[in-house]
């Protein structure tokens, strides 16, 4: 077997593929953050908690009403998205004209609150959610066994990422969005309901997080604390990509997945820290991130 640095090439291929799959998760989550920050200048520290909510809603809907995975894939993000709209309407709107930092503190509080309440209801051991039958098993790629579900994750996540990017950067709706958030008075003058636009945008960013949560439900332990540590990793991804850059968030997400995956092979202990190292290095060289506009 051919080896690279003492690791068989086949294993390396497998790790690269897994890295891309994990990267797809990062991409989805950081995309939501980037949409929210790029368009609304809100630093959403509740993103991890909303991701968790997506997964938890999926499990709870299944347990209580037997709602299956496919329905959840639409309904859970929609519900959590509505919840996001409420957060925007009742909380974030009140501090819209303050320093961005306050949005960080406010959403941090929201995250603590949601997580604290749900821990009391559901405990921390995790809830059971079984894989939909269609996805049981996998395919042998020669260099690794790829479960069908992981293949599905990467396809659907990338589709959603691309769709979001396309919608914001290339469609009329997207141009309204960008214009509305950049110069709200002007757009108000054109008869566009900017506050509604803001609520919906936040809700949409939240939906992306919840969607990632639904995708995660069958493969990760679902519990109220599942989003806690993921949050700062995903934030690092967004910062590396350049806050607010939609394409940057997606590409960096995939890239960081791969880098983290490789670290897991060569220096597994460091895999939790490597993204922060990359972040420090990138910001030293390019202060506004890989794809960010110069501030």
């Amino acid at each position, binding site marked *: 077997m051919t080896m690279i640095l003492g690791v068989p090439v086949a294993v390396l291929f497998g790790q690269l593929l897994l890295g891309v799959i994990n990267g797809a998760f990062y991409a989805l989550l950081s995309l939501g953050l980037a949409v929210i920050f790029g368009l609304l200048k809100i*630093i959403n520290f509740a993103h991890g908690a909303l991701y968790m909510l997506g997964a938890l809603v999926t499990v709870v809907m299944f347990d209580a009403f037997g709602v299956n995975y496919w329905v959840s894939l639409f309904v859970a993000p929609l519900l959590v998205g509505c919840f996001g709209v409420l957060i925007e309407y009742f*909380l974030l709107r*009140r*501090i819209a004209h*303050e320093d*961005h*930092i*306050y949005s*960080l*503190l*406010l959403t*941090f*509080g*929201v*995250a*603590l*609150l*949601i*997580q*604290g*309440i749900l*821990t*009391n209801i559901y405990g921390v051991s995790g809830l059971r959610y079984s894989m939909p039958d269609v996805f049981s098993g996998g395919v042998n790629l020669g260099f690794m066994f790829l479960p069908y579900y992981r293949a599905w994750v990467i396809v659907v996540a990338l589709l959603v990422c691309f769709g979001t990017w396309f919608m914001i950067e290339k469609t009329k709706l997207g141009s309204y969005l960008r214009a509305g958030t950049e110069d709200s008075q002007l757009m108000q003058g054109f008869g566009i309901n900017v506050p509604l636009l803001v609520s919906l945008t936040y809700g949409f960013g939240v939906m992306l997080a919840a969607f990632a949560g639904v995708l995660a439900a069958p493969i990760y332990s679902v519990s109220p604390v599942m989003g806690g540590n993921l949050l*700062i990793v995903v*934030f*690092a991804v967004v*910062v590396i990509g350049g*806050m607010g850059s939609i394409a940057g968030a997606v590409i960096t997400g995939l890239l960081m997945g791969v880098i983290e995956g490789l670290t897991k092979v060569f220096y597994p*202990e*460091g895999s*939790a*820290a490597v993204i*922060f*190292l990359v*972040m*420090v290095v990138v*910001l*030293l060289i390019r*202060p*506004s991130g890989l794809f960010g506009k110069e*501030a």
Partner: protein
Amino acid sequence: MMAESANASEIRASIVQQRKADDRKKLMVNLVLLALLLVAPAVLYPVFLMKILCFALFAVAFNLLLGFTGLLSFGHAAFLATGGYTTGYLLSTYANVTTEMGIIAGTAAATLLGLFFGLVTIRRQGIYFAMITLALAQLVFFFLVQAPFTGGEDGMHGVPRGYLFGLIDLQNNTAMYYFVLAIFLFGYILVQRIVTSPYGQILKAIKQNEPRAVSLGYNVNQYKLIAFVISAGLAGLAGSVKTVVFQLASLNDAHWHMSGEVILMTLIGGTGTLLGPVVGAAFVVNLEYQLSQGALADWVDAILGGIFILTVLAFRSGIVGEIQKFLKKNLH
């Protein structure tokens, strides 16, 4: 001409007088608080008070940046932990290192780390500054998990409190309390001196309008860097003292939640006021203690979250800030 200048000097005189009266009021408040702190251990449990003082010093240090320079650091836990672990390591490894030497070394280590962090981050602003300090602090956390001398997740235990100047047995809680109080006052007065000095005025100017400060010819980055390093050093001092008080250092001090907690303390107490972080620290430490005792123990996180939200929405000036506002409104 004459009349005008007489008028001007009158106004000046009245301003000076007003200021003097304000200063006198402030001095009174400070003296009353000091008296309270001196007699506190007779009423309240000393270790608990020491914990409050350590976090108060930490929050005061943090507020030098957030409240007086306008920089939100999301990585201050790194300094707290570096101070704590350095002191803990020295005191438990070398018998001839005295307590005060250990604390000074811990503070120095945190100051150096602060200089490094500062050099890397100081040109960044707003959210980028917050995030890069967070990233650096995560790297410090990683180092502390991996380093053999920290005891990893188990933490570092059994750090001796030792003798102050080789004389006073710090194992005695009352002695320890007054030692901690002295250190806290040192830090507090230092920060007070800084913010009221001309240097502090420039920091304020930077906070209010950085481009203007630049155009006035100030080397803004250098001013910010100095503030950052002092803040880091004092945070390290808080960590060092905390390690001596509790005789242990743990990874909780380095975790990013700790960086979040100090923000909460400062915010609740009142950013931009000197006393705010102290009140905030006392409030949060006491709240956590009270909640963790009773039936609400499992609700601590949720309640803290609720308080966070409420503070940001309704009391952005914090407890002290709101009181000041209230007094101003009703006294003038």
